[in-house]
């Protein structure tokens, strides 16, 4: 038995500002054993606890796919004490990490199927790891569609990668910003994500949907997908409850008898529908 709460030390290989208050770290393991153990377990959708001694730990997804084995990435918003302390770190410095924890998107079960990714704002990072995992294994899957929206053009994250996906022949990318959030040279759509999904009317035929975003976006997007004919068991999302331990002990991420940190964070909309709604 070893100390479950002992983090490993990660070196920040590079730091990139994505959008106002949103920053991405590319992190390299300094402990080879931890790295090996990590990749044995890591599947897309899992998360980790990123920390800085003296400040504490915060929970974010691992935003890079398991097909990239030289580094992991995380993208997060400056929200409180811990995220502020983390964002003030620069390339070359270190932070701590524990993980990977939680369950994952069952992408092996999606082989041969079409996939539509729908994300809003800062919720692209958890979806992005799935997108790259699928694109790194492109031949195993059918049609890939990505719908991504943010409040304003400035709030879009991973702008370089949006351009890459745009340029790919076998990916359909739809980007949108909320009305009023566009710039003079904005070439994407203008409108809220649910409306854009509705207008693009993706076929539910042999298709799974991955939906991550602010609660308000999810609330209005799910009925659109249902109307289009998507089954609740084919729509995947993640729950983002507050966590401290990440390993099914501290009790704060509980929804009903579930531990979001252990049974989640990935759930189908069918599963979410069976949870006590007042605890979400």
């Amino acid at each position, binding site marked *: 038995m070893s100390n479950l709460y002992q983090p490993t030390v990660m070196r920040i290989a590079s730091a990139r500002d994505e959008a106002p208050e949103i920053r991405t770290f590319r992190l390299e393991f300094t402990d080879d054993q931890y790295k090996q153990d990590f990749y044995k377990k890591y599947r897309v959708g899992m998360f980790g606890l990123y920390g800085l001694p003296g400040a504490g730990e915060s929970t974010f997804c691992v935003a890079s796919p398991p097909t990239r084995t030289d580094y992991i990435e995380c993208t997060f918003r400056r929200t409180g004490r811990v995220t502020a302390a983390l964002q003030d770190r620069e390339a070359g410095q270190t932070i701590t990490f524990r993980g990977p924890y939680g369950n994952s998107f069952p992408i092996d079960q999606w082989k041969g199927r079409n996939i539509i990714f729908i994300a809003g704002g800062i919720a692209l990072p958890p979806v992005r790891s799935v997108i790259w995992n699928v694109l790194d294994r492109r031949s195993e899957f059918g049609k890939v569609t990505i719908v991504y929206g943010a409040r304003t053009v400035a709030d879009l994250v991973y702008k370089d990668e949006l351009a890459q996906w745009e340029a790919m022949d076998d990916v359909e990318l739809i980007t949108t910003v909320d009305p009023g959030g566009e710039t003079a040279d904005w070439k994407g759509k203008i409108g809220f994500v649910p409306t854009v999904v509705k207008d693009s009317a993706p076929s539910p035929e042999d298709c799974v949907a991955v939906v991550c975003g602010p609660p308000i976006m999810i609330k209005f997007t799910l009925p659109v997908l249902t109307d289009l004919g998507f089954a609740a068991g084919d729509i995947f999302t993640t729950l983002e409850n507050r966590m401290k331990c990440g390993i099914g002990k501290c009790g704060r991420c509980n929804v009903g*008898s579930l531990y979001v940190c252990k049974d989640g964070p990935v759930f189908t909309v069918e599963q979410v529908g069976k949870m006590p709604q007042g605890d979400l």
Partner: protein
Amino acid sequence: MKTLEATKLADLAAALTAAGYRVIAPCQRGDQVHLECYQAGKTLRADVIPVNSAKDALFPRSEVIGRYRFEGNEFETVPVAPQAGKTVLLAVRPCDAAALAPLDAVFNWDYKDEFYNAHRDATTVVALACTAADDQCFCTSVGGSPDSTANADAVLRPADGGKRFILESLTDKGQAIAAAGQAVLTEGQAQADPPAQVAPAFDSAAVTAWAKDGFDSPLWKELSLACMGCGACAYTCPTCHCFDIQDEATRREGVRLRNWDACGFGLFTKHAGGHNPRHDQASRWRQRVMHKFAYFPERFEMLACTGCGRCGRLCGNGMSIREVCSQIEQAAQAGVK
């Protein structure tokens, strides 16, 4: 059989201390009785249920789980091992011993928690059978009994009208206690006193059954009206195990601490982004009851309540799990959803 004169409980504590045990026993502190480390001169009280529960010894209210040092802008993590010395929980109630089952379950159901297990392995439980109960006791409503030996390594049974105790060893760890305390124990005969009468307060199966579909019941609002959200019930509860992790540091060094937390606190589930799934006291109180009587049984096939009654004794507004469960049972009988 081995017996101990009632007046010699402190002598047993002293003998065990001399044998290298950290002895956690019901000690008089002002006009209260606390389970705390025995030291020479302290008065032991076997006649009162202590304010705090035995969980404190296995899951301390604050425990160092990480350590680090700073050097300029960089840091170095320092390995931490549990500080768990040989401990005996002396004369703890059967409801405290019963609480080890839910604690064992949660700290081992998937990942094994090194800190909890180190304390647990180093601990010997000497239960004290109850021959008296107060109005808050309800162990018999949640599957326990005043003379239960569940999870105990040895049991002290009051005998001969309270004049002495019978010490029964139940495990090897219990045998070791009898051996270490040999000097103050007597070989002889004694008649065990009858266990306390603890009248059933409610039917826990009925509460669990109601709770299954009771999440959206308007009853929760009414049941929780008196709750101030102080968390005293959770801190004193022998099974409550929710915790927070916080860093405390100077410019040179610091520690990462695991501190008790409580689902009754408003910040417990509040997201960094502002959303709080349990945004009012009614939803937090509901969580407390549902966790003990619905969620925990669903997950671990046992209740997370042992009927010790501490929540009721300590609540500043006279609330208790006992009272609330009784009301839920009445609602269930009346067909109220």
